[in-house]
């Protein structure tokens, strides 16, 4: 697995509350290759954001990563989060309004990031900051502006500029377009995609929008109730889903092609279980139309590097 930039190995994130110990992430494993865009899709609460937080060591207490390891560029970084933040792995959040410090000019925030991570003079840093703004499509003369003077889409561009400034090898983008208008979404996604392809930066793109996954990502991982349901090449997974949940997601995505007009929208019955009421065995089996007896008894492992479903057991060589 030499071209794996990042490997998440069997991590679990737990937190305690009055009712007991809950697992926000349960034995999750995935990997990101150099220069690829990996999508992470799932419903709200499935654990997508938690995965990103775990990688950077930003889980809010009382939660913590209780087991597993994160490997980056061949080294385990469980205890080295601070060294890699920004310089190697960056993260951008959903709400651009809240991501920027309202009291400081964006130029100050850019300079701060650049000067922290790079050994350059101040004038050199200013040059880089201006270039950074240009690359995301913002007039470099706006270095002296405050965040609230920008529109939502432009703010997210500033955020992207900030995230790229320390020249990381991996960016975790946590629902970067959810808070933006549809017309702006495409621009931002395009921008992100192009900038990263140019630099060879990998992206973990967290979203709940299947359309975004289809158009932007190389590979995709599907999360359900804190566990990995399926992972693989995007086109493969979307056209030929192996996990019943993935199939359900794909089927229930609204479409605008000629075949879809006036067709009823497919829904997966039921809802994702709450963390304190997880079913035995496979988390999805109560809603699954293909469930067999084994599904309610044992939690499936990932078969063929592809999907965690007992239905695949016979088709696959178990790892």
């Amino acid at each position, binding site marked *: 697995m030499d071209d794996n930039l990042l490997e998440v190995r069997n991590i679990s994130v737990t937190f305690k509350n009055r009712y007991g110990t809950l697992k926000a992430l349960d034995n999750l494993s995935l990997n990101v290759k150099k220069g690829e865009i990996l999508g992470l899709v799932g419903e709200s609460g499935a654990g997508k954001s938690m995965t990103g937080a775990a990688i950077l060591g930003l889980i809010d207490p009382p939660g913590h990563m209780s087991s597993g390891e994160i490997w980056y560029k061949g080294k385990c970084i469980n205890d080295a989060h601070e060294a890699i933040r*920004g310089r190697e792995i960056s993260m951008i959040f959903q709400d651009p309004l*809240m991501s920027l410090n309202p009291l400081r000019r964006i130029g100050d925030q850019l300079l701060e990031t650049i000067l*922290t991570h790079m050994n350059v003079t101040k004038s050199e840093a200013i040059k880089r900051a201006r270039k950074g703004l240009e690359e995301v499509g913002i007039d470099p003369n706006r270095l002296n502006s405050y965040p609230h003077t920008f529109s939502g889409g432009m703010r997210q561009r500033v955020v992207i500029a900030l995230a790229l400034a320390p020249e990381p090898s991996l960016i975790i983008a946590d629902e970067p377009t959810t808070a933006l208008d549809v017309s702006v979404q495409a621009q931002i996604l395009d921008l992100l995609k192009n900038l990263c392809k140019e630099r060879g930066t990998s992206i973990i793109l967290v979203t709940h929008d299947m359309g975004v996954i289809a158009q932007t990502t190389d590979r995709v991982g599907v999360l359900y109730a804190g566990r990995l349901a399926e992972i693989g090449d995007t086109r493969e997974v979307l056209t030929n889903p192996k996990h019943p949940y993935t199939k359900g997601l794909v089927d229930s995505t609204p479409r605008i092609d000629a075949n879809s007009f006036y067709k009823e929208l497919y829904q997966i019955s039921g809802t994702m279980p709450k963390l304190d009421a997880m079913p035995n065995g496979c988390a999805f089996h109560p809603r699954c139309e293909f469930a067999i007896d084994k599904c309610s008894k044992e939690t499936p492992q990932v078969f063929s590097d592809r999907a965690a479903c007992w239905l695949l057991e016979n088709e696959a060589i178990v790892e």
Partner: protein
Amino acid sequence: MLVIIFRRLGQSILVLFIVALISFLIFRYVGNPVDNLMGQEATLAQRAALIEALGLNDPFYKQYFNFIWKALQFDFGNSYRGALPVSELIASRLPATIELAVTSAFFALVLGVIIGIYTAINRGGYIANLILSTSLIGVSLPTFLIGVLLIWLFAVELKWLPSFGRGDVVQLGWWSTGFLTISGIKSLVLPSITLGLYQLTLIMRLTRSEMLEVMRQDYVRFAKALGLSSKQVNFNHALPNTLVPVITIAGLQLGSIVAFAIITETVFQWPGVGLLFINAVYFVDIPVMSAYLLLVGVLFVIINLIVDLLYLAIDPRLRDSNSSE
């Protein structure tokens, strides 16, 4: 932005007039000025003359504006006790109160912010929790109780500090200061702590909760995710955003310091305007009461105005009435 400033100013002036009105109403209608100034033995004619002289038969609005006009010239008539001009009484005692108030406020603000930041950054730490628990005592203790207990400990038992009065003061023109003598400074210690303790705990807890709130904000998480050091995150991002509401609320607290000064001055027999006021209440000395209220009212309105303007200056978002989104 000018529009906002003018509107605020207008509001303040309106409130000032209302305060003046209340002060005037008290001055004129509570108790009987004639009885108080003349005593029971005055003849009817003498009374009538006094009534005319005081303008007590004039129409209401005339008396009101007369009152304001005189107030602007610091003329509040004479005290019922001792017939000294009220303005002189207040002027002679004002420096004492101001020095006390400023010392306490400074002590409370500086220490409060520092401890607040510490407890926020070291959340869950042993010392932090200890500080928090004891701070609750600071909020629950009535000011006078703190004063009395401090006197008992430091003046009676340990005999380190004086228990009343200002010590020796140096006269600088109209102002008398206690800062320039050792006994003056010693006398300031206990009263300042007493007066400032409540503010201290308030500011400390406010700073802490604001900072904790700020540290949960996305821009702080983003700063962390970008790899900025804890020091940078805490001091460049969290702190300025915390201080904005803290300083404004602290400014408003200045007002309550003036109010609680009344109590502190009583405990320590500190010769300030607070003690003057409470004696006036006790002896129903109306002119002094009314003058003090007007003074304090004006002070509060001004403080509120300054704090609002300060907010405008610090938070850039408030400056433009049109900011996108």
